[in-house]
């Protein structure tokens, strides 16, 4: 059945609520977006440093294993036995030369090739696979893997633009910035949010909400509308980058701007201990907030001295997991590592400046579930063409997300803005 969307406007300033809640939409998204012509984030190279190292990950809701073979090459394959569909790798990570499905002990090498089928030739002339059974035709489904400065991306698509072209100028530049020297993985955060995965993509492109929902940001000048900053997008408006410059405004600027905004008070929070917030401009570009977001499942986030990747893992139409990998650099001193860890109080599911997104998305998901003929209003920053801004009171990148989503889903309105 062909999906049909009656867009009220061709600039995505109205989004029908049923698009978050429809099983057929979700199934088509997994097929045409995550298993379609996009580059999905898989893992960091630093997580699989040695031959045989592997990690399980997700591409949309497809379970995937990332692994390093004996020759050092990197591979990714679907974690579903080519025999009867059972889960092959059952741990989240490890080191192994072979992966054996426990059900019938079919055995795969670290590139996902089938190397063993028990009783393939039968026993004493009885049973066994047909003589023409060809193991080469029954490998674990492979993804193409590309390593961009230590960030591993994968795709199921045979044909699509190269990864550097896909990332675009700021995507490439920002990944190089975060990955400019060897990493030290600090660990993981997981947050299971009861909402549709697209709400999170919108949230990441919504610089309007940041300093209103997350009041901590405003009080301590980590991210607020009065700072110098803006949003950048790629040419297709599918990726975006929110950024802000440290100390580019004053407490008084913020007091004046937020005066009269109900619910937000610049001076309400008075912490006793603020040393953990301190930030040094180690990237030497003045940014204390940088969040390049790559369609459809990836972003990197710097908030002051915290550094993370975040992967969006859809879990059906009604929930998704935010899988966050925190890191520092291999040459960080013990003091700097401790500082980064203390500052991780800011981010993650318990983060002072990030926890609220979980609740905001759940209340939107819950209420739109029963309003299938209504629409969201996305007009902050203007209607019509989608463009970069040098301010952050905009929802333009959200419209950018929907424009590329519509293109991949084959549901663009007539005269669609792209």
């Amino acid at each position, binding site marked *: 059945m062909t999906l049909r969307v009656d867009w009220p406007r061709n600039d995505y300033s109205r989004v029908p609520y049923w698009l978050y809640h429809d099983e057929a939409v979700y199934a088509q998204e997994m097929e045409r977006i995550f298993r379609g012509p996009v580059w999905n984030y898989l893992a960091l190279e630093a997580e699989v440093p040695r031959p045989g190292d592997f990690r399980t990950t997700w591409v949309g809701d497809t379970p995937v294993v990332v692994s390093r073979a004996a020759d050092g090459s990197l591979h990714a394959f679907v974690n579903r036995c080519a025999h009867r569909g059972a889960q092959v790798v059952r741990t989240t990570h490890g080191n192994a030369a072979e992966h054996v499905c426990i059900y019938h002990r079919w055995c795969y090498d670290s590139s996902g090739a089938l190397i063993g089928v028990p009783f393939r030739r039968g026993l004493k002339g009885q049973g066994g696979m047909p003589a023409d059974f060809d193991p080469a035709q029954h490998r674990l489904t492979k993804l193409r893997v590309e390593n961009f400065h230590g960030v591993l991306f994968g795709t199921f698509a045979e044909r699509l633009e190269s990864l550097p072209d896909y990332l675009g100028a700021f995507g490439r530049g920002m990944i190089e910035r975060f990955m400019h020297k060897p990493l030290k993985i600090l660990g993981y955060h997981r947050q299971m*949010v009861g909402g549709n995965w697209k709400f999170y993509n919108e949230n990441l492109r919504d610089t309007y909400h940041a300093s209103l929902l997350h009041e901590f940001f405003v009080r301590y000048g980590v991210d607020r509308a009065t700072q110098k900053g803006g949003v950048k997008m790629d040419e297709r408006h599918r990726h975006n980058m929110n950024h802000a410059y440290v100390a580019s405004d004053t407490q008084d600027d913020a007091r004046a701007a937020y005066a009269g905004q109900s619910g937000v008070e610049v001076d309400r929070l008075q912490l006793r201990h603020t040393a953990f917030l301190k930030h040094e401009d180690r990237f030497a570009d003045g940014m204390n907030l940088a969040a390049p977001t790559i369609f459809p499942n990836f972003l990197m986030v710097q908030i002051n001295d915290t550094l993370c990747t975040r992967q969006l893992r859809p879990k059906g139409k009604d929930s998704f997991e935010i899988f966050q990998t925190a890191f520092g650099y291999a040459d960080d001193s013990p003091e700097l590592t401790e500082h980064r860890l203390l500052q991780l109080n800011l981010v993650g*599911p318990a983060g002072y400046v990030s*926890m609220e997104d979980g609740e905001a998305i*759940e209340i939107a998901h819950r209420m739109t579930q029963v309003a299938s003929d209504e629409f969201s209003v996305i007009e902050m920053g203007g209607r019509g063409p989608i463009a970069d801004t040098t301010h952050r009171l905009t929802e333009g990148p959200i419209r950018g997300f929907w424009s590329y989503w519509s293109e991949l889903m084959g549901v663009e309105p007539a005269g669609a803005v792209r």
Partner: protein
Amino acid sequence: MNTESQARQAISDLLAEYSLLLDEDRLEAWLELFVDECEYRIVSRENVEQGLPNIHIWCKGKDMLADRITSFRHVNEYNLHWARRVIGPPRVSAQGDGSWQVETSYSLFQTNLEGVSRLFSVGRYAMRIVPVDGRARLKQVHVIADTASIPTLLAAPI
């Protein structure tokens, strides 16, 4: 708290206070169960098992812990709920310096304002408890949560 049975009673009382003060949303009173030079940390078992130091919440000293409560009270938005935790029997080991190492399991449930309950987190506490004026007080609380995938968000202490 001169005898072991007195110490065990004091520790048991402390755990009951810990649990009920949090469930009653009396976070400021809960804070007073800690000594000034304290540490409170929530990590997930997934990270611990891999030897990774990542934290969910890490407060070094009572001021940082007080700040978490202040932020929870005045700034952070979260899913409105009642909390209810069940703490298991503690394993108590006396340390040479007069303190006790206490380990116990917890289950933490959340119930929304329409009365629908869910399991929010299970895990264990590793606590260092010290005697102060005849009562047991918290020097160190490490929460090691088996529940690595946190539902919705984590705003209040576990």
